[in-house]
């Protein structure tokens, strides 16, 4: 394992210390390091709180700030945070308008956030993100995984929260964005969890994992590495086929091409070019595009493609100003 670290036990706290020091104008570390909140919390609005296992930076702490989250709870690497973290965060940033949890759909995350919600004494609601089309949604599964689409949900709902929307409105908006969002990922290499010290899985020199999860979970199938155009085409096909079931077969979308941490920008833009031209040929309008490392899997080489079907109202929320460590505009 080749990583910049001192020891695995301290990896998270030392990394977090660097993060809050570098972004002290935007974020602050909560008591006991249980959560990261805005440097200047605003209890007059609904508080958006997310969190999950670490190793996906900038998600979630990198999306804390004006126009997006109010707090984020970092779990151990790839392990959901514990209820006391979310409870402390909710008590710190939640006010009368209530608290909205944004949770990626994994058993662990769901249960831990659920316990926190049971313990929290104020108004609370939860939006579950489940955008990964790689996993079929059947009686066999606990539903689809939540992956890169989470950033889009956090951005859009964050803008609406900043605009003073009510908890009910935000919950409904979040559910609507989730319903309009689909993702699929592909890995060229495994990631290595610091505490594990060895790669989570192994791929041959000419293999890739199509449909990989953001923790290195196996995907749909292991296949031979092929051209960027073919890879992007297969991902777009899966996404488009899935969203078609909900009646979306074209129209304006946000396209997110997300790197998993080990893939350089040059390759991500190339994949964006492949996805963009493919989607355009299928009748989608590329209303907005965003490319970069936003929801990573430690040092995994690979990327995901996400689309969210939008209308003018959602686009206005997407375009609204945001000032976080990981996303800045407006």
């Amino acid at each position: 394992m080749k990583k910049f670290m001192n020891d695995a036990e301290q990896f998270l706290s030392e990394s977090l210390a660097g993060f809050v020091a570098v972004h002290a104008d935007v974020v602050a570390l909560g008591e006991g390091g249980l959560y990261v909140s805005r440097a200047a919390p605003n209890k007059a609005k609904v508080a958006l709180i997310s969190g999950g296992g670490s190793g996906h930076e900038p998600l979630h702490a990198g999306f804390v700030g004006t126009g997006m989250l109010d707090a984020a709870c970092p779990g151990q690497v790839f392990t959901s945070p514990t209820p006391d973290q979310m409870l402390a965060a909710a008590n710190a940033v939640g006010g009368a308008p209530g608290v909205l949890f944004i949770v990626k759909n994994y058993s662990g995350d769901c249960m831990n956030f659920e316990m926190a919600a049971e313990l929290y004494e104020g108004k609370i609601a939860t939006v579950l993100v489940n955008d990964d089309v790689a996993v079929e949604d059947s009686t066999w599964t606990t539903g689809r995984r939540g992956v890169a689409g989470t950033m889009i949900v956090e951005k859009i709902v964050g803008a609406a929260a900043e605009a003073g929307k009510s908890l009910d409105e935000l919950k409904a908006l979040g559910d609507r964005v989730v319903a309009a969002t689909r993702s699929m990922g592909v890995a060229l290499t495994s990631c290595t969890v610091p505490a594990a010290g060895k790669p989570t899985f192994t791929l041959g020199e000419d293999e890739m994992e199509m449909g990989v999860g953001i923790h290195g979970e196996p995907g749909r199938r292991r296949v031979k590495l092929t051209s960027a155009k073919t890879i992007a085409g297969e991902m777009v096909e899966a996404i488009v086929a899935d969203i078609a079931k909900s009646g979306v077969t074209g129209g304006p979308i946000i396209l997110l091409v997300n790197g998993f941490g080990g893939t350089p920008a040059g390759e991500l833009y190339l994949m964006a070019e492949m996805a963009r031209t493919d989607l355009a040929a299928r009748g989608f309008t590329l209303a907005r595009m965003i490319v970069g490392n936003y929801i990573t899997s430690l040092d995994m080489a690979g990327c995901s493609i996400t689309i969210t079907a939008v209308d003018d109202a959602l686009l206005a929320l997407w375009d609204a100003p945001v000032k976080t460590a990981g996303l800045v505009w407006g």
Partner: protein
Amino acid sequence: MSSTDAAQTGLTIEALTKAIDAVVATIVDHASELTDLDMAIGDGDHGLNMKRGFEAVRGAAAKIAAQTPADALKTIGTTLIMTVGGASGPLYGSLFLAMSKAVADRPIDLVVAAEMLEAGIQAVQSRGKSHAGEKTMLETLIPVGAALTAAGPAADPAALTAALKAAAAAGAASTVPLRASKGRASFLGERSIGHMDPGARSSELMVGAVCDAFFAPAP
């Protein structure tokens, strides 16, 4: 304690402390096995999660030593919830919290212990929205609960240990051919078949350690 002691005076905090030590030791010993199992069909953190959680429980030993068994179980549950994370944290945490609640101020004999375990299993099921056959820790816990209930108030310690361990081992082994429909492994679909569930294995380890601590003849 022996089962006779338990029947007469109830579970003591000393016996519980000894059991905690045994569980911590076995979890620490098997952490990398649990992690490997979780790498195959999950995200490879189950051993680390359990190790972190039970080391924290051991860290609370002084506090626990001064508590009643019921309060000690509550401390264990809360500690696990606050340190394990992942799916297993809330589940094992809920198990111990529910067991604590089920004591209801009674001395803990084998009958009460069986009631407690059943309550704990019930809590896992409601927290996990899960039931037998979904390739989870419940595959181990449910038959162990049944075996303890079936043993009755005056079971022979050696026979009970054997019965509980056998139920646990069979339960964990039974997960291998199952297809997961709960937890992270469910995302794998067919590919989850052929691997042992890490949570079922950690439950087996815990059951074994507790039996040895409670029922093994003092050295």
